């Protein structure tokens, strides 16, 4: 696991260049480009608000805020996995020629997704004023939840990056699994909307736990989970992260031959 840290330290200049390359391509046209990335979460909020608030008549007034705080971290998680799955294939030209640790491509994608999430999160500031949400000490839980989420994302990403080179239909399978995971992870609804008797089991889904912890942290609300949920999520995250780190060097030398 120290290997990743070493890579970040040794190749930070390449990493920042990869990230700024991706951001430049994404936000070409600077300010307007950035506004587009705010428009995306906003439009989703409008859609979910319409479905839940207007049609189903569920939820409180600050429902949009709750949705954004679920969606943006989810998009980050989803984005890291999806971009990892193509990381080696889309960089094949470099992977086959430049002697750069291949984790770099995955790290760069993850860092880009993190920056995009950070920039998009600014969208919540006006909403927080409107609904008078004052964050307190629990705000610290948001970065913690992102950290736990990142462990999963990077660990899975490293496995998926190699596997997708060898089995080229993996992308389809991932998108199906992720569609399920999306609706089972409290992304567009709070855990409190889950029937009481299921909540205990529901929160063993580490993604649901992370999203709910981060969201309630920012909104300064009661936490719906118990310590056992947090511990299980942290242990699982660490395990997946370690697994990815351990398998990646073995898988990548096999995978490059399929590029």
């Amino acid at each position, binding site marked *: 696991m120290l290997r990743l840290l070493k890579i970040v330290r040794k190749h930070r200049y390449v990493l920042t260049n990869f990230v700024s390359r991706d951001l*430049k391509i994404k936000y070409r046209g600077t300010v307007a480009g950035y506004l587009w990335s705010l428009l995306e979460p906003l439009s989703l909020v409008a859609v979910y608000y319409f479905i839940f608030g207007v049609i189903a008549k569920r939820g409180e007034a600050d429902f949009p805020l709750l949705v954004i705080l679920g969606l943006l971290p989810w998009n980050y998680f989803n984005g890291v996995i999806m971009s990892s799955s193509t990381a080696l294939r889309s960089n094949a030209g470099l992977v086959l020629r430049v002697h750069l640790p291949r984790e770099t491509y995955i790290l760069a994608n993850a860092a880009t997704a993190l920056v995009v999430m950070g920039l998009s999160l600014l969208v919540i500031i006006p909403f927080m004023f409107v609904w008078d949400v004052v964050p307190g000490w629990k705000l610290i839980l948001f970065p913690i939840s992102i950290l736990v989420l990142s462990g999963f994302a990077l660990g899975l990403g490293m496995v998926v990056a190699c596997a997708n080179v060898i089995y*080229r239909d*993996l992308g389809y399978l991932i998108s199906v699994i992720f569609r399920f995971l999306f609706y089972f992870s409290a992304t567009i609804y709070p855990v409190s909307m889950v029937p009481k008797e299921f909540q205990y089991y529901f929160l063993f889904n580490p993604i649901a736990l992370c999203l709910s912890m981060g969201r309630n942290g920012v909104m300064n609300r009661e936490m719906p989970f118990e310590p056992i949920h947090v511990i299980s999520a942290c242990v699982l995250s660490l395990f997946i992260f370690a697994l990815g780190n351990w398998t990646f060097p073995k898988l990548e030398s096999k995978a490059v031959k399929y590029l």
Partner: protein
Amino acid sequence: MKLPAIKVNDVHLSFPMLQYEPRGIKEAFLAIALRRRKSKAERVFWALKGISLKIEQGEVVGLIGTNGSGKSTLLRTIAHTYAPDKGTVETVGGITNLQLGSGFRDELTGIENIRLSGAIMGYSPAEINTKTEEIIEFSGIGDFIHQPIRTYSSGMKSRLGFAVAAVAEPDILLLDEVLAVGDAQFREKSMARLEEMVGGDTTVVIVSHNMVELRRLCSRVICLSQGKVALDGDAGEVIDKYLENTGAKPETE
């Protein structure tokens, strides 16, 4: 005696033969379920079959052979891109494996691509700053350097690619069919630059089909045939023998 910069010791390298490999997860499961898999020995293709070489520091070596004889694979193995199935590869110092514009992004401008490639090749920010001017100058692209490179002609792209690599000062330089790019004028300029690099301490391995250029640059040439070293020795002699064996006419300038 000089130290060997590249030591290749009995290297074997196999590739999976994709017609026998499951194309996806579904096929992988089916293959296991139906016991349709061939044994591993039947499913692989040996691209390198026991190659041993020593290349000394400062040597300029050409690598020739028919298409599919393993030249590029050997080059990538020396660059540590492929890990050999058997045998070892030892190298001393930094390696640049030059393939034109492999890190280029069409959406970025010429300058942005220069900076990105520089970072990928391991330059520090300060080095990139000093080298950017040099690269622009060498490429001769002029004001187009501020345009996204998707607007470039293919010749312009390869010129920029060569220019980025031309300012490199690696210990080991690997060139995979990059000699003949651009128009006649640029080709002459790049040959001159290569001769400059060749004259120094850099160890160079060149894969090329251009025998005229190989004769001009290399002192030693290695000929590969079906993943093995067929000939190894003085550039002129090996090239003559190779041309004789393949039945090609001696090249004319």
